[in-house]
């Protein structure tokens, strides 16, 4: 090894001819910067273009129905009456059910995989979860129709009705295809992404944080609570948002089990319809201009709902994290 030259001035001067002969070129840096900038802008441009295209494609419908499109519930192509409210409702409710089921499951799985599971079992579980993500939506939908729905109809739904039938959410006749079934199938579809992102987040919690808690005599659950989950909560929230994004736009499997009835019903046993499902189901039969435009507008609404939900989530995150750090002790 070479001995370092002590004085600073001496080390700046070229020490050999070879070093002096190659002036560093700035061209590579510039090219790299422009290239990455172009790539980043392309993504932004794509989002803007999609939004604009949806807007253009639905301009007639927007003019004709105006704000009523969002607030009315009639969807009748024959009389050319189009109201998107049941679809908005269906999308939000089914996604909410999905989050309610998937978030605890995924975060618990991630905690188990990073904090508790024996090392040899971790990789097999991770691989299985990734495999779940690789199942095509339509296959999951078929499974939903032929396996999940009959089972739900025969066992869990009657149980839910027996114990919670007094609430409006679990009352009324049980058909099988329902809002609840839609939510469950979405939950299955967003489980892998929330789990794997949460797992990465939890893995990135410094060990020093865990040690700090252990050194205070914390048990494993306490360590997980005060050092791991609390440290990672921002990231976990991000994982949930990612899952929510997927849930809102999930199409095929939901379409196959949700029942495709545009109605707003309190009971989760009743069929529903989502924004994505109606586009998938009806665009081939949209023969009139206004019908097609209305479907385009549904797309625009889905686009807007997704953006809006993400914005709200980020605002929520911001307020949550600022209030809890300033919570006083005394």
């Amino acid at each position: 090894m070479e001995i370092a030259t002590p004085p600073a001035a001496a080390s700046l001067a070229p020490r050999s001819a070879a070093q002096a002969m190659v002036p560093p070129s700035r061209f590579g840096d510039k090219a790299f910067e422009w290239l990455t900038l172009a790539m980043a802008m392309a993504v932004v441009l794509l989002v803007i273009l999609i939004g604009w295209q949806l807007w253009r494609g639905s301009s007639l419908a927007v003019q004709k129905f105006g704000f009523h499109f969002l607030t009315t519930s009639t969807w009748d192509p024959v009389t050319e009456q189009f109201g998107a409210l049941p679809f908005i409702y269906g999308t939000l409710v089914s996604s909410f059910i999905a989050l309610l089921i998937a978030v605890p499951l995924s975060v618990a799985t991630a905690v188990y995989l990073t904090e508790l599971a024996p090392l040899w079992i971790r990789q097999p579980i991770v691989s299985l979860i990734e495999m779940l993500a690789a199942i095509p939506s339509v296959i999951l939908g078929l499974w939903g129709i032929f396996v999940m729905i009959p089972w739900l109809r025969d066992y869990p739904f009657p149980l839910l009705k027996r114990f919670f039938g007094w609430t409006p959410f679990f009352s009324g006749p049980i058909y099988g295809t329902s809002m609840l079934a839609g939510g469950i199938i979405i939950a299955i579809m967003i489980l892998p992404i929330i789990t794997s992102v949460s797992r990465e987040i939890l893995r990135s919690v410094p060990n020093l944080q865990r040690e700090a808690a252990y050194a205070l005599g914390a048990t494993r659950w306490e360590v997980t609570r005060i050092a791991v989950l609390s440290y990672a909560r921002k990231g976990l929230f991000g994982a949930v948002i990612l899952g929510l994004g997927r849930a809102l736009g999930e199409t095929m499997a939901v379409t196959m089990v949700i029942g495709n009835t545009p109605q707003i019903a309190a009971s989760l046993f009743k069929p529903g319809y989502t924004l994505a499902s109606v586009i998938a189901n009806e665009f081939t039969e949209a023969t009139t201009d206004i019908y097609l435009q209305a479907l385009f507008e549904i797309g625009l609404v889905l686009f807007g709902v997704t953006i809006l939900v993400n914005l709200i989530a980020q605002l929520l995150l911001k307020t949550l994290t600022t209030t809890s750090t300033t919570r006083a002790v005394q």
Partner: protein
Amino acid sequence: MVNLIMASPDPAVVEHVERPAELSPTTEPAPPLTFQVKNVSIWYGEKRAIDDVTLDIASNAVTAIIGPSGCGKSTFLRCLNRMHELVPKTRVEGRVLLQGEDLYSSTVDPAIVRRRVGMVFQKSNPFPTMSIGENVIIGLRLNGVRNQKFLNERLEKSLRMAALWDEVKDDLHKSGTSLSGGQQQRLCIARALAVEPEVLLMDEPCSALDPIATAKIEELIYELKAQYTIVTVTHNMQQAGRISDFTAFLYMGRLIEFGSTTKIFTNPSQKQTEDYITGRFG
């Protein structure tokens, strides 16, 4: 993270008046000694990190552990509160007695050991989502203390002991990570002191700090000695000389020499110790 037995909410621990019954003395208590380490060897899988170390750690004194990187200093320190068990596949042979009680007896809960033997780390690690005040009292909260008045008193007392009270008393609600590096390290000391441990282990507590912050921590260690037994690992020979009463020199997992700091630094009996202290290797 193996072999951790979950702590049960033990009223004796919550009240801090009495030690849990399962830590009953197995040998005669030796008042001036806090730890008696007897023929301890530690393995990480197949690798032996500590090889047959026997040494006594005196109460109300600072014992420094020195040695080159990888000599097992940290492992040795961590075996005093069973923190090394967090690494999978560790194995311990020999006995570590704390006030005469075997820490590795099968009935002892490591969580309770760690409440009695506090620890401060190389890098300060306050909990970033908690305020300064919450950071200090979190250990008490884990022990089930709910009395707000008691918590506030202990909060102030711990911060005063860590010589941090005057600097943060108006900012207790601010995030623990808003402090400077040296302040954060003192916050971590306050956090460790708040549960009133018997011993404070310090794993190179100043290695990430500037000289002024280091001086403050050293001063603090000197003051804490009156009430606590302190065991510290350090890379810094001058620091060991300044702050410790006893020094243990470890090399390749073996205890080469142990004695009063004055003796180790002025008249070591082993050639290896002398070589290390004078900077000829390590």
